Structure formats: C-alpha cells, structure tokens
C-alpha cells in the first residue's frame, strides 16, 4: 500500500485528475450515444438477496415509529433494481455513475465502498452490448485500438482444465483444483458453483484479457445471477447457457453484464431461492425488492445491462497495483 500521512490524500493528485478526466470522457461517450444519465436512491428498504453479497444496513432512528425492520435501510450493492424500475417506467436507455457498498470486501482490488458505472440498453442483445462496452472502455482509456476477444465460459474450462463445467461431477472439479495445486483443494468443503468460482479465479482469470479486452460469456445457468437463460440447441451447443458476460483486462475483472431477466415469475423464484439459501447459511435475512417484481409484472422492455467498476478501470489507466492508489481516502482512514 502506498505510504501516506493519516490525514492526507492516498491517491496522488495526477491520479485524482485522471479520475476526473476519465469521468468526463465517459459522460461525453454516453451523451454522444444518446444514453441519459440518471440518479436513483443509494438507500433502499430492499436489499440484495444474493448470498455472496453482504449488504450494509443502517437504522433511521430519527423518523420514529414503525418496527426495527421498517426503520432499516440498506446501502445499495448496485443500482440495478431502481434502474430497471426506470426502464419499466419508460425511461429509454440510461446510465448512472454512483457509489455502491459491499461489506466484508477488502483487498488489493476490493474496497467496501466503490464507484460503479451501470447502464441499460433497451432493445440491444447482449452481443451488441459487449461491443458497446468495448467502445466505452477504449474511449475511457483513450486506447482506440485496444483489441477485444470473446471467450465462452464452457470453452475456457474445456481448453485449459480439460473438463466440462456444465456437466463435470463435483469430484472432477476438486481433482482439477488439486492438480492445479490450489492449497487445501483436497479438504475444502464447497458446493459445485463454489468449485467453479475457485477454479475460475485461481486458474483461469489470470489468462483473460492478456492482449486487450477479454469478454468471458455464456456462463453456466447455475451462475446466471440476473441473466436470461438461452435454451440449448444442436450439439455442441446442446446446453442451455446464461446470457451473462464479464470483461477482463490483464486478468482483472472489470464488468459484469446480462441480457436481463424480465420475467417477473422467474425473478421472484430466484429471490425465493436466494432467501432460502441465506437462511440455510445463517446469513442476515434481506427483504427482496417487491417493487422490482411489480415493475417486471407491468412490463420491462427487453434490455441488456452492465455494471463496470470505475476504480479498477482507473487502476488500469494509471497502472496502479492496489486500489488504495486510486482512492482519495481508503476506508481505514475515511
């Protein structure tokens, strides 16, 4: 971590300026593309149900009355739900630059409060959105010729680890982790998807985006999150895939995008599954966003959407190795 006085800025002034200029280029990009900037609430009565996300909450003691649950407000982990409500309200294409909050995430590339760029494109399929993400990154980094490539999730596992992530039994995943010499692979007690996450982060991510932008796409349906599932067709594409992608540069994960789920019933079922999983794991119960479900019920236009971590993009722009190098004041000194 960079050495600095306790009170003074952690990021060097040229880095602060690089952030300001990058934000200006991003806003210019969207203005030219006809995408409207919006703001949605950072505090919400509903939270993120995803068991892998730790929502930070606060209690509004000043408004008085109501139960503890009524007074509880969550800091957003992403602006996804209110932005989808805007789409269902007829906003057209929108983007937002905002702070999001994720508890328990701290490291070289993680900070519990970070800046996110999120945008939605009604009528775009996710292949088109991938192209737009590439253009946005080229504009933001001022690298107009930065090359891109698409890699399918299933192909990556097959090529590098010689296993099919959609069908391989759990013991095959464990054996691959042992072969890759991931410490404790022989004794870790993990679910199937966690094994896939371990292999992805330890063995595969470092290979992605080595010569530009690597878009990992068509995830396993079990890793769909809020993506639409595309049914399988003829072999070798006989398996259904989640229309989800992630962008990597130099092995660093920068963005996550979906062909968005717009089916209210399916969204409700995924919320219910998340909540059951949270109870099973003994995690805090999080009230799902029923207004999102109502918005989907009323009808959200078919859209693709993506969230991109701006601090990490800035790290790449200025060649930083630790996220603290691009933050004015990291959490320990906030």
């Amino acid at each position, binding site marked *: 971590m960079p050495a600095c006085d306790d009170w003074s800025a952690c990021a060097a002034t040229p880095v602060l300026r690089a952030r300001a200029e990058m934000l200006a280029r991003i806003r210019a990009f969207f203005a030219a593309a006809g995408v409207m900037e919006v703001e949605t609430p950072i505090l919400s009565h509903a939270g993120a149900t995803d068991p892998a996300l730790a929502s930070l909450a606060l209690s509004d003691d000043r408004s008085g009355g109501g139960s503890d649950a009524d007074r509880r407000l969550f800091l957003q982990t992403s602006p996804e739900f209110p932005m989808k409500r805007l789409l269902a309200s007829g906003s057209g294409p929108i983007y937002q630059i905002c702070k999001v909050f994720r508890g328990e995430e*701290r*490291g070289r590339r993680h900070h519990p409060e970070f800046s996110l760029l999120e945008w939605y494109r009604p009528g775009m399929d996710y292949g088109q959105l991938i192209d737009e993400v590439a253009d946005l990154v080229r504009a933001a980094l001022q690298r107009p010729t930065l090359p891109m490539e698409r890699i399918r999730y299933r192909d990556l596992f097959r090529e590098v680890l010689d296993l099919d992530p959609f069908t391989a039994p759990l013991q095959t995943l464990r054996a691959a982790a042992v072969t890759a010499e991931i*410490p404790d*692979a022989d004794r*870790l007690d*993990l679910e199937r998807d966690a094994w896939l996450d*371990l292999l992805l982060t330890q063995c595969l991510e470092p290979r992605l985006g080595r010569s530009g932008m690597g878009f990992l796409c068509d995830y396993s349906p079990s890793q769909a999150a809020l993506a639409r599932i595309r049914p399988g067709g003829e072999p070798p594409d006989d398996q259904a895939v989640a229309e989800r992608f*992630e962008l990597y540069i130099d092995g660093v994960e920068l963005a*996550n995008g979906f062909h968005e789920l717009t089916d209210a019933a399916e969204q409700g079922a995924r919320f219910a599954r998340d909540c059951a999983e949270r109870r099973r794991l003994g995690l805090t119960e999080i009230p799902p966003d029923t207004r999102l479900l109502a918005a989907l019920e009323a009808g959200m236009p078919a859209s693709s959407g993506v969230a991109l971590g701006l601090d990490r993009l800035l790290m790449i722009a200025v060649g930083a190795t630790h996220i603290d190098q691009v933050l004015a004041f990291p959490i320990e000194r906030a």
Partner: protein
Amino acid sequence: MAFYSTSEFKGGLKIMLDGDPYNIVENEFVKPGKGQAFNRVRVRNLKTGRTVEKTFKSGDTVEAADVHDTDMQYLYNDGEEWHFMDPASFEQMTADATAVGDAAKWIKEEDICRVTLWNGVPLSVEAPNFVVLAITETDPGLKGDTSGGGGKPATLETGAVVRVPLFVQSGEFVKVDTRTGEYVSRAKEA
C-alpha cells in the same frame, strides 16, 4: 475461545490451524464478479517456522491463537532449559531448546529477549538484534592489517562462531548483528 472471521484476516494475526499456532504473513481476498469469495493466505507455523499457503472460503471462521510477545530477561541455563524472568512481575519461566532455537548461541545472562508466549508458555525466543560478546578464541592476525578484508573465524563466549577482521584478537569484545550472524564492530565491554 476466540474466533476470527476471514474478513478480519490481515498480516500479523495469530490463528490456530491443525492444533498449531500460525502467524498470517499475507492475506489476499479473491472474488469472481459474482459468486463465492475466497481468502488466499500465506501463514507461518510459529512452532516450526515453516511457511505454507492456505485457501479459506470467505466468511469461514478460525480459532484465534493465544499468542503474544513480551520482553523478558534471560537468567541462566540449567543444562537443559533456559530460565527467563518478567522484569515487571519477576515471574519466572523456562523455555526448551526448540523454543530458544538460534537465540541460544547469542544470549548471555541479563540480556533482554523478545519471548513469544503461546497459552502462557514460551514458544520462541528472539535474541536482541545486537549483542556484545567476548572473543574466547581466534588465530592471531597479521600485524598491521586494519582493512577488515578477508577475516578469520572467532569463537565467542557463548560458543557462537563469527567471521571477524584479522586485527581483532582474543579477549576483545565485538558487536554482532544476531539477525545475520555478522560482525559489526569492535566494542568496549558490555
């Protein structure tokens, strides 16, 4: 019993793994865009000194190791064990050869040492960074050599052998860096 969650992991934290106390050397938080996070951790076994890599599922907890450092005065060796005293409480403790390790060849009565206690028992002993010791035996050097180049072995009063410049003689005192085992300078009696 105290426990730490992986979110509290950081360098210097003392944890129990497989019944042994460990010190966290380095902690790296890894998480895919969505899904399970992990902590890749480098830990040093405080009993053996060996460093190993571990993988934890983020959110898991591990038992805290009751390990802390304290400054103690070395009193004497009874032939089997080394006796130390807490200079504040005058409480005495003994440490075995495993705990004392390399420090044995540097420490002398009354030296203040950093003692690492595990569950109240000495786990390791660190000699002071610099010690001044008398030379008990060394070959007479060449007259007139003051350059310090070359050097020769010298046995110190504690039994340790260090390389000293040719001009340093038996009976003289030398200052030694115990971390490298290297001669620093001649010294007046400590």
